């Protein structure tokens, strides 16, 4: 039987190898450059070494920076809410920490069949108990260390009493162990019950019942914030402290339950989880295929007299109206709901403040117009449109040589760019309308052109985000059959864009400057993108 540190070393080493190969695969998928990289790159020591450094840094970044960011947000958020209710910040901080600890404990999936789980437990024959315990050990150390490194200073800054601060690392870990212990206890009961009834344990999930899980998640995500606000409003510091203190005995109880979990059930639980996930994956794949096939409606042929590729595009849009515009409708409703909530907030703000210009929404929209860019970034992925275009149109037409000609690809690229822009337009119009109305209601602007620039900023950002999806589709062709290929390079580009949007949001660049920058950048981007699609897509836009 392997010791925990030895098992952990193997798990981390496997995870690292998977990450390294994923990164190298991502490089090989970069247009043009990727074609120059041989498949022997996986064995080049220098490249592997550099990639390993990057992979380890990414792991550390994910593990540490996420926690740091969480504590920063918790600190400022608790400060803001507590000052609104005129209560000491320590209540908000502790209540927030408690909720985050519960949520974090709920999302620790030690039996989840990751790639490294499959390799370690199912292929390499690692003891399943060692595997789960090593993962738990790793998580406990990580949470404990991060809570000491970031949680303790943040709590002290928030004015939390020293004895409560001491509880933070232990409670955070305690809730994780309690959750795992309870999971194991329930799983053991269910497994024993099945065995007594002579039923198979195949597909018995340790994650429990889906409906119960959803109810718990719903309670945590929607009830949690309300409970925090109530705790702050009623100054329930001692109640929160008591709940936090309960984390320590809960952890000890959890540990005892974990120790009593039968060894034979570790592997059974992992194998069951894998069987369940595999089945879900196959079902989703088949559903995806069926969904896109059923998405074709029997709409009448073209009546506009369009010819050639225009005819093809027009018929495609017409016969996929429900699936394409359905998504737009969904985003539109989401945006409308968000706007409705913001309107209620605006109403209270206008009632509260003597000067409407004191409104936080006004401050956000006028001082941080990058917010619109960030919102458009989040809602304009275009994935659904591209997926439908690929599975129901391109995957068949790409087998004909005429469709792979540069002229054909460029024409379709242009037509689709307009289509995606149209599909993304309704939520953007709602957003622009709300932005302008809010600015007008909260005191107008120094000059009327500001309204125009707010609208133009949104429109130009919309052009970019719409084009980005189509360009990515033509240059990286991210599908294989009905499945999307995971691509770290695309993920990296999206992450970079997210950083740019965050900088735009935080920097406080004005709508005028943002619009002007957009009007310079977007046409250049479109020009370069058009040229790249013309020259590269015949080589890279293929069925895989």
């Amino acid at each position: 039987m392997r010791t925990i540190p030895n098992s952990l070393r193997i798990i981390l080493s496997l995870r690292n190898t998977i990450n390294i190969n994923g990164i190298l695969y991502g490089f090989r998928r970069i247009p043009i450059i990727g074609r120059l990289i041989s498949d022997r790159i996986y064995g080049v020591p220098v490249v592997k070494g550099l990639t390993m450094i990057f992979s380890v840094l990414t792991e550390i970044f994910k593990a540490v920076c996420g926690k740091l960011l969480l504590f920063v947000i918790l600190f400022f958020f608790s400060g803001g809410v507590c000052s609104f209710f005129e209560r000491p910040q320590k209540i908000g901080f502790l209540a927030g920490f408690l909720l985050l600890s519960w949520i974090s404990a709920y999302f620790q999936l030690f039996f989840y069949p990751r790639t490294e789980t499959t390799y370690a437990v199912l292929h390499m024959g690692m003891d399943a108990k060692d595997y789960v315990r090593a993962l738990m050990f790793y998580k406990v150390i990580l949470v404990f260390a991060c809570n000491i490194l970031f949680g303790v200073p943040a709590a002290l800054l928030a004015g939390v009493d020293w004895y409560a601060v001491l509880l933070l690392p232990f409670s955070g870990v305690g809730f994780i162990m309690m959750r795992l212990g309870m999971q194991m206890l329930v799983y053991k009961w269910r497994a024993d019950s099945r065995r007594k009834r002579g039923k198979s344990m195949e597909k018995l999930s340790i994650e429990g019942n889906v409906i119960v899980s959803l109810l718990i998640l719903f309670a945590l995500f929607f009830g949690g914030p309300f409970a925090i606000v109530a705790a702050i409003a009623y100054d329930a510091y001692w109640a929160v402290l008591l709940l936090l203190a309960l984390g320590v005995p809960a952890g000890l109880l959890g540990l005892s339950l974990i120790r009593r979990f039968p060894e034979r059930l570790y592997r059974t639980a992992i194998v069951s989880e894998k069987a369940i996930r595999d089945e879900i994956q196959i079902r989703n794949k088949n559903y995806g295929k069926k969904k896109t096939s059923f998405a074709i409606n029997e709409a009448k042929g073209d009546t506009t007299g369009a010819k050639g590729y225009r005819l093809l595009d027009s018929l495609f849009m017409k016969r996929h109206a429900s699936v394409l515009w359905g998504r737009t409708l969904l985003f539109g409703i989401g945006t409308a709901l968000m706007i409705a909530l913001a309107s209620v907030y605006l109403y209270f703000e206008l009632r509260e403040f003597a000067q409407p210009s004191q409104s936080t929404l006004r401050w956000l929209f006028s001082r941080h117009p990058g917010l619109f860019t960030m919102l458009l970034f989040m809602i304009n992925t275009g994935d659904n449109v591209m997926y439908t275009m690929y599975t129901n149109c391109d995957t068949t037409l790409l087998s004909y040589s005429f469709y792979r000609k540069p002229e054909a690809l460029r024409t379709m690229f242009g037509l689709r760019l307009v289509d995606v822009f149209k599909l993304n337009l309704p939520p953007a119009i709602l957003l622009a309308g709300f932005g302008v109305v809010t600015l007008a209601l909260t005191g107008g602007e120094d000059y009327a052109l500001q309204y125009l620039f707010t609208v133009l900023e949104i429109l130009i950002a919309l052009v970019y985000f719409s084009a980005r999806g189509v360009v990515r589709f033509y240059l990286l062709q991210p599908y294989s059959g009905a499945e999307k290929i995971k691509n770290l390079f695309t993920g990296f580009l999206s992450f970079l864009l997210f950083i740019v949007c965050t900088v735009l949001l935080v920097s406080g660049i004005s709508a005028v400057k943002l619009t002007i920058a957009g009007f310079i950048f977007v046409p250049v981007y479109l020009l370069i993108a058009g040229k790249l699609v013309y020259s590269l897509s015949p080589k890279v836009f293929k069925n895989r």
Partner: protein
Amino acid sequence: MEFVISHLAKSYGGHKVLTDVDYSFSEGRIYGLLGRNGAGKTTLFNCLNGDIDFDKGKYFFREDGAEREVESDDIGYVLSTPTVPGFLTGREFLRFFMDIHSDRIRDKKSPEEYLKYMHISEDTWDRLMKDYSHGTKNKMQMLINIIAGPKLILLDEPLTSLDVVVAEEMKDIFRSQKEGRVLIFSTHLLDIALDLCDEIILLNHGCLEPVEKANLGNEDFKKKVIEALKDADDT
């Protein structure tokens, strides 16, 4: 006119699929490309159609002694599993194709005439192609591939899973289309190759090997081909 493949090679990682494909195909003939499952027939077609890159070699047309590069319009590729865009009707697909190839189609006919020529029944013309039968999809795919008059037509086991009537109709269409073109018909079924093709070539050890056609239809000849295929598989 000749279609020439010169020393074409393709491997996946360390596995060599096509080692040295070197062959000349003459205009007006149907070539039966025979090979067992997994011999590399589809890989060869995918290389010729530009779907995948190959490691070395080239292919071209030889016209009046001069080499001419193969352009994408020169090739028609009929897949064993017919691929047609399901959201279009047969008539719309044809209309679209004729629109974008208006300058290339010689002896232009109406879409209806083409559909009739392929024995596609009239009641299916305005139905979405996603609801077409396998055979009708196959005919549509074939129609699209011959209408613009490509010089080379690659047929990747196009008769697989077709019923007898449709298969016979398709064979007649292939025969009628060979004038002025090269048709390469891949199959792993010897009888179909013997029935349809003017020449038979074996894809053996990643190379193309001509089979003596003088004895077409002779039982001994069949045995010889089967032996060659067995040999290819054993190695």
